[in-house]
């Protein structure tokens, strides 16, 4: 709790968090205005898909930077050394810091999208289950990319390194991962589709998208071909859960193992 409060005080003074949430709020409001002409019954689904498509541009990059800078600030302001000279190990510190940063980012996002329900209620018929799926997908993206950001903050020595790593990771998940898969797509057959599926769902954006779209009923798994059936060998929710756990554990471990102090050694 101490770490959460500390994180809040540090972020509330800075502009990063406000700018990030401000942009998320503005974009979601803009989409709401744009969707206001949609039909009462179906508008909510279209809005949710558009919202997700827009947020995948924002949430990953914001979380990467906020997570990374939050950790790097501890190095820069020498508070990390002060904390570690007391009883804390770096693993313990990173765990507490993770909880604090994740809490700080997830609570406002969830709070905003719950407030967002109010204007939606006047425009569309709300399907709470699918809207819940949208919030869950945002939480998962936040969890994964914040943790990756904290990993970047932990292994980086300078702000330039953070920028480089963050942009590279964002570029990888946003473009490169799918690009590589597309390059191999023509070779996918029934024999290797399961492996292809594992790699496909390693992208948190894809895992969250399939989870959301299946919750919205846009992907119907009743009448699939054998290939698609093998591709979807687990439920979308389980794919997403595995993805989140995988990235959180791996990036936490890398953050601990490859942790480096600020500046040149």
């Amino acid at each position, binding site marked *: 709790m101490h770490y959460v409060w500390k994180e809040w005080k540090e972020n*509330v003074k800075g*502009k990063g968090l406000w700018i990030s949430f401000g942009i998320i709020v*503005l974009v979601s409001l*803009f989409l709401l205005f744009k969707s206001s002409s949609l039909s009462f019954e*179906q508008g909510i689904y279209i809005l949710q898909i558009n919202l997700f498509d827009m947020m995948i541009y924002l949430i990953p990059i914001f979380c990467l930077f906020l997570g990374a800078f939050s950790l790097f600030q501890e190095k820069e302001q020498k508070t990390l050394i002060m904390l570690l000279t007391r009883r804390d190990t770096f693993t313990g510190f990173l765990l507490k810091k993770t909880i604090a940063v994740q809490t700080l980012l997830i609570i406002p996002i969830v709070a905003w999208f719950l407030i967002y329900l109010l204007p939606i209620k006047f425009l569309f018929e709300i399907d709470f289950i699918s809207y819940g799926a949208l919030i869950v997908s945002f939480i998962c993206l936040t969890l994964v990319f914040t943790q990756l950001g904290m990993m970047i903050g932990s292994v980086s020595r300078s702000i330039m390194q953070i920028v480089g790593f963050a942009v590279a990771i964002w570029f990888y998940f946003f473009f490169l991962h799918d690009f590589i898969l*597309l390059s191999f797509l023509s070779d996918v057959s029934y024999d290797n589709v399961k492996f292809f599926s594992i790699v496909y769902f390693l992208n948190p954006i894809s895992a969250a998208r399939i989870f959301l779209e299946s919750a919205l009923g846009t*992907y119907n798994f009743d009448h699939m071909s054998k*290939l*698609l059936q093998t591709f979807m060998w687990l439920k979308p929710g389980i794919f997403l859960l595995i993805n989140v756990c995988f990235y959180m554990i791996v990036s936490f471990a890398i953050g601990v193992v490859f942790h480096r102090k600020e500046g040149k050694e």
Partner: protein
Amino acid sequence: MKRCIFLLFLMLLLGSLNLHATYAEDLQSLLDNLGDGEVLHLENKTYEGNIVITKPMEIVGSEDTVIRGDGLGNVISIEAPGVKLKNLTVTNSSMTRNDAEEYAAIKIHSDGNIINNVTITDSFHGIYLSQAHENVIENCHIIGLGDGTIGGQGNGLHIYFSNNNLFKNNFVDGARDGMYFEYSNDSEAFGNYLTNNRYGLHYMYSHDNTFKENIFTSNKGGAAVMESFRNVLENNQFIYNYGHKSFGILLLMANDTVIENNTLFFNQRGLYIDSSTNNLIQNNHIVQNHIGIELWASSNEQVFTLNKIEENIIPVFTLGGQGRNYWNKDGQGNFWGSDFPVIDLDQNKIGDVPVIYQSSLTELIGDQELTYLFLKSPAIKIYDKVNQLFNEPKIMFEDSSPIVMDKWINTYWVWLMLAGIFVLFIIVKGRFLLCTMYGRNGRKM
């Protein structure tokens, strides 16, 4: 004494069982006793079916009038012409698929009937017209069994060998096909709402029908026109038919169809045309679909003119080679949105240079169904561009007379205003804290 009580109980039980039979007989005998053209007003209660109407008459229900079938056949069979049914709920037809006959809540075998404001639930087909002509079905509410049992149930409105019928303001939710026409010609449908069905509309071997101002949403496929000629689809909305094989409109071996002034929004494919010839696609708004128009090479002589085709991930996709299709008519092409900037120096609202769209994804999409999973990925456009460097791209369409439209003012002012407020907020926030801050030892900062 015990025997007496037991006998009394048995008699009461038999009596109560017989009561149901009496209700059914009551309704049937009431109908049988009516004269030609007479009106029967039903009370606010549940009547047991099944019933057969053999003479012209009018049956008018009240708010809670229910006719409940025995689950073994059609609940209401109309054998006579000129029957009117109004304000009823009809439920519980047979669901069997093992009989030669397919059952329905209301089965019409005659001409000139009017079915108005009837709600149908728990039935195989909703309303079935079998060799029935010049009927009017309006304001009916047909609820199917829903998504999991689409294959195991019938259609909302099933029209079989029936011509010149009118379908107006009906609602069909969760059936196999919302409206299914087979060998049925010259019918009209207006203002129907078809949702959560397999296909909203399905024409098979049905010609010269008109379908106007209907809404198709959340179906596996919006309208499927198969082996049917000279049908008109006008002013309809095809929205959110979004599954991985879904479409707004499918033309399969459909010729001379006129598709005009429709909105195809947020579908997996807006228009899906295969093995069809000589269709006119005019003045439609095809927007925000995964694939705007998917056109198979077996389709020829389609004319696309004055359509607004914009914000689709792939505007047009031609598979299996280029057919003979025309992207303009009388010097008027289509509007392609901001993805295809058009120069109009002579300001005649027609672009000075053709709009050409090339893609190298043809084989990938044609051969590998998993490609659809990547359509929303930002990588696909880059992959396409990179692929074009190494492989010969194929021309998807060439519109030699693209339409230029005036820029219109939309909600961007709201966006700009909000952005202004946001910038102001950040600037002001830079000088003042948003909440009281406490520093070391609880001192205010």
